[in-house]
């Protein structure tokens, strides 16, 4: 057979390898810094761009997209050419892929610390960068599929299946999750609202883990592990089964990030059952890797590369066992919002992705440079110190999670929260946070040991950038299935067919979950009391997003007694209909904030409290690990886009009145001046246009509306009129006195100090507008009447009863200077 000569492009592999190492070190150092801030909050140095909320997304993005992203490209550009016996389809696309990807990373490293973010986890980058990512990612896929089409081998190998699935799925996920409407060049709002946004985000978020951190690395495993061990793949059939079941099932499991939250039960159930079904397909990958090493275990003892692979594959197996377990609702009720999640992802990230990458680099760099690894011993040291670091990182966090969740949920014998102060549950785990820093340092020490070893290896060898290779051209076979050919073997030689099947497999799960969430109304029961954000609240919300508050504070109270006792009524689907994007968060380093606008609730804090707290959290509350936000007091609120913001919200269906955008700025100013005046009364002189004012406005909006709807949860009041109450006035002097007190502060302004009537009617005569029995009075106070507002959101039933009793007692007292009678005369 005639052998064709062609050249492998090794230069692109080299470039990606260098980028992997560089961004790996950067990403890990950022992570280390962020971890340090959690134990020592002053490490943000009072710099906005160094604060946890801003650099945590930088760390996750740097590790996921910069470190492992470049590792994927390194490995796939090397393996794809060799597995397909062809140079990459286009050198231009290869270069475009490389430089485009590095540009994206640099832009991320600039914009994220500046707080330019959409706040959707692992998809934080703003819309212009999103577009760039889509273009660069498609250029990779184009290059991949182009190479597939010009390949010289007949069938495509399992590693390529995984690369292909990764490309297709990530393209779909990224584009689907990033549909947003720009406000300006640096700001956009996602088209999805509240619960829908949560479902779309975690369909993306979960599958970013699946198709960016799992399937491409399985691709790497299927190439580099058998190469390094020089053993055949254990089972071709297992490859087929676990590949298809994995990519199909993964896409359904997203809702397990939202268990026991404001998500319809059917969606939660899908999340649970598909996560459980994911266990065996995931383990299929682990087993095919480990069983491939049979007969090579003696080599593992000497080879650092194989050691890295073995621990990586084992960590993969552990993570994919833990994942389904964490998706069981009972387990999840304990682990969610705790450091368990952080420990879990670091077993995956440090173990599976990190160690696969290190193993690959130790094998690949000597191959590329036609030499031997400079020091096998140093690589072994890296392995051991990295393993130790991984354990020292994750074990304390598991411990911290266990401790904290039990503290959150513990009740005393009398039925009260054992640790009502959230802070107590934080200070308890600070020692674990400190230990985890040590784990991080050890892990980074590993990669720093790797650096000189690889540099010396590179210096001792030489690279052939265009490596000569020979292969026979691909034989043309019939399009139809050949006699004796299995259906799978058939599509393995039909790349386009294969890609279409992959697309079908990955798209079903998302469609089944997302489409009903958007189209079927009953999935998100509306709550009439929930109103759109005022312009100032909206600006405050955008600051909350900018500062990355969601990285430490949830806004999602789960339906457990331990949570409703601590925070207030649990979160409902209908509360979030105007939230673009949703802000439920995934971790509670600080307390939940969903009810921080509920006056008289457990989480309400007055404006001046927030003022002091943002200024100097540690000075204000000893032991707090909240960072200080001094710039909130210096920086002016930039509300220049408020008109456009309201217009975009209207476009997305938020019911602001027609033409409201023109009025927005004036309203914003008015509300801000109100808050500034309130602060002034408390002795804090601050201009109305500082950022702190908008933050306070936003925090005071959270849960305010639903508190109007559900009133005090103890009283079971609903947004329906209070009709069922059978109230009789109390004559207990205690109650009357309490009623009088409230009357003085809440009613006297309109009804006069003695009920003589001012704006409101005279309450001391014998005339009433709405009926004079005690029950009627109670209803009017509770629900309001005419221009009078209802007070059931502000007072519980007991207090309402006290006021009603007091008002009832006023009837016929005929106070001095009484207003003229209104309504009907009654007999008391």
């Amino acid at each position, binding site marked *: 057979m005639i052998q064709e000569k062609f050249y492998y492009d090794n230069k692109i592999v080299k470039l990606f390898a260098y980028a992997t190492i560089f961004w790996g070190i950067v990403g890990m150092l950022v992570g280390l810094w962020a971890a340090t801030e959690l134990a020592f909050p002053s490490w943000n140095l009072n710099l906005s761009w160094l604060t946890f909320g801003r650099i945590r997304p930088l760390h996750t993005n740097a590790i996921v997209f910069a470190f492992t992203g470049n590792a994927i490209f390194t490995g796939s550009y090397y393996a794809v050419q*060799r597995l397909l016996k062809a140079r990459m389809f286009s050198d231009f696309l290869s270069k475009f892929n490389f430089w485009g990807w590095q540009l994206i990373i640099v832009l991320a490293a600039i914009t994220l610390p500046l707080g330019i973010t959409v706040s959707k986890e692992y998809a934080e980058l703003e819309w212009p960068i999103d577009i760039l990512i889509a273009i660069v990612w498609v250029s990779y896929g184009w290059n991949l599929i182009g190479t597939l089409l010009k390949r010289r081998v007949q069938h495509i190998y399992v590693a390529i299946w995984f690369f292909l699935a990764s490309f297709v799925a990530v393209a779909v996920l990224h584009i689907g999750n990033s549909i947003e409407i720009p406000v300006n060049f640096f700001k956009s709002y996602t088209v999805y609202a509240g619960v829908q946004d949560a479902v779309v985000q975690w369909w993306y978020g979960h599958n970013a883990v699946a198709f960016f951190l799992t399937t491409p690395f399985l691709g790497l495993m299927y190439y580099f592990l*058998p190469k390094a061990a020089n053993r*055949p793949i254990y089972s*071709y059939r297992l490859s087929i089964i676990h590949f298809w079941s994995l990519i199909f099932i993964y896409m359904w499991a997203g809702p397990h990030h939202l268990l026991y939250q404001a998500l319809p039960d059917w969606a939660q159930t899908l999340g649970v059952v598909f996560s459980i079904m994911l266990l065996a*397909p995931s383990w299929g990958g682990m087993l095919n890797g480990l069983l491939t090493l049979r007969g090579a275990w003696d080599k593992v003892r000497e080879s650092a590369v194989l050691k890295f692979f073995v621990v990586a594959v084992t960590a993969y197996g552990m993570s994919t066992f833990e994942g389904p377990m964490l998706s069981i609702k009972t387990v999840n009720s304990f682990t969610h919002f705790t450091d368990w999640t952080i420990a879990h992802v670091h077993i995956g990230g440090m173990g599976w992705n990190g160690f696969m990458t290190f193993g690959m680099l130790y094998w690949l760099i000597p191959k590329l440079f036609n030499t031997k690894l400079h020091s096998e011993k140093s690589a072994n040291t890296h392995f051991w110190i990295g393993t130790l670091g991984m354990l020292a990182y994750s074990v304390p966090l598991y411990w911290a999670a266990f401790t904290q969740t039990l503290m959150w949920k513990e009740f005393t014998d*009398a039925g009260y929260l054992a640790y009502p102060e959230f802070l107590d549950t934080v200070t308890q785990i600070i020692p674990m946070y400190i230990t985890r820093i040590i784990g991080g340092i050890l892990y980074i020490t590993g990669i720093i040991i790797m650096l000189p070893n690889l540099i010396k290896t590179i210096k001792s060898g030489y690279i052939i950038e265009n490596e000569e290779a020979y292969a026979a051209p691909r034989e043309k076979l019939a399009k139809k299935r050949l006699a004796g050919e299995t259906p799978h073997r058939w599509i393995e030689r039909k790349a386009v067919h294969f890609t279409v099947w992959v697309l079908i497999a990955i798209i079903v799960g998302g469609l089944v979950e997302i489409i009903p969430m958007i189209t079927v109304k009953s999935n998100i029961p509306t709550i009439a009391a929930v109103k759109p954000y005022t312009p100032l609240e909206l600006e405050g919300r955008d600051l909350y997003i900018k500062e990355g508050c969601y990285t430490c504070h949830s806004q999602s109270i789960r339906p*457990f007694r331990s949570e409703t006792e601590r925070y207030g009524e*649990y979160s409902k689907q209908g509360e979030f209909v105007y939230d673009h994007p949703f802000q439920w968060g995934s971790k509670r380093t600080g307390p939940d904030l969903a009810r921080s606008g509920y006056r008289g609730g457990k989480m309400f804090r007055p404006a001046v*409290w927030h003022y002091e707290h943002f200024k100097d959290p540690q000075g204000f509350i000893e032991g707090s690990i909240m960072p200080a936000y001094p710039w909130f007091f210096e920086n002016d609120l930039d509300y220049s886009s408020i008109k456009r913001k309201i217009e975009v919200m209207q476009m997305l269906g938020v019911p602001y009145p027609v033409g409201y955008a023109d009025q927005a700025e004036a309203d914003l100013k008015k509300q801000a001046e109100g808050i500034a005046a309130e602060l002034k009364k408390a002795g804090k002189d601050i201009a109305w246009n500082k950022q702190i004012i908008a933050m306070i406005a936003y925090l005071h909006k959270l849960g305010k509306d639903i508190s109007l709807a559900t009133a005090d949860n103890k009283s079971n009041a609903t947004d329906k009129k209070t009709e069922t109450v059978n109230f009789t006035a109390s004559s207990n002097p205690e109650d009357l006195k*309490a009623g009088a007190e409230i009357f003085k502060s809440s009613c006297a302004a309109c009804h006069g100090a003695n009920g003589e009537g001012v704006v409101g009617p005279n309450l001391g005569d014998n005339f009433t507008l709405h009926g004079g029995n005690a029950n009627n009075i109670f209803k009017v106070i509770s629900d309001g009447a005419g221009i009078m507002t209802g007070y059931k959101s502000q007072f519980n039933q007991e207090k309402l009863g006290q006021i009603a009793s007091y008002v009832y007692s006023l009837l016929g007292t005929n106070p001095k200077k009484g207003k003229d009678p209104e309504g009907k005369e009654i007999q008391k």
Partner: protein
Amino acid sequence: MENKKTYPKKVFEGYNEKYDQKLMIEHDYDGIRELDNPPPPWLMWLFYLTVFWALGYAAYFHFFHIGPLQAEEYKIEMAEAAKKYKKSDAGTKQIVLLTDETSLNAGAATYAKSCAACHGPEGKGGIGVNLTDNKWIYGDSPENIFKTIKNGTNKGMASFSSLSDEKLMQVTSFILQKLQPPKVTDTKDNTDSNN
């Protein structure tokens, strides 16, 4: 078929050629070969088991409606707690100020943790009102103070109902006896405080 019998051994034993089926002749990708082994049966059984479990789980909650869904589960939890714990209803019972040193110290500790941030370490006020001036917006009786702390106020004070009644009584006692000036100097005529 001896393969099948000895299978479980194979998983744990070292490589042994006779257990493996042949290399697949056609399968050679850049030198990587593939074996034609069946997937480990226990893994397949695990998979089938999870699928059955999934069907059962969905049926249990959604087709036969046996298991409680989220909102229902919460109601059950709350009802059980209501049965188990008889929480006192603030306002319905007389509150006797505690005077023993232990209670007052406990009250001081709670005060330092939960109240001092707003009312000042010595109760002189700050964000919250001054607690040492004998002026009370919501009534000066222990009951009223107790209730104010427990239920919060419309003006901005948070509800501390997550603290036990015992703790609330301790802190009420502390405020009234340690932060307040002696009653002798009280010029207000409103003195129904029972201490």
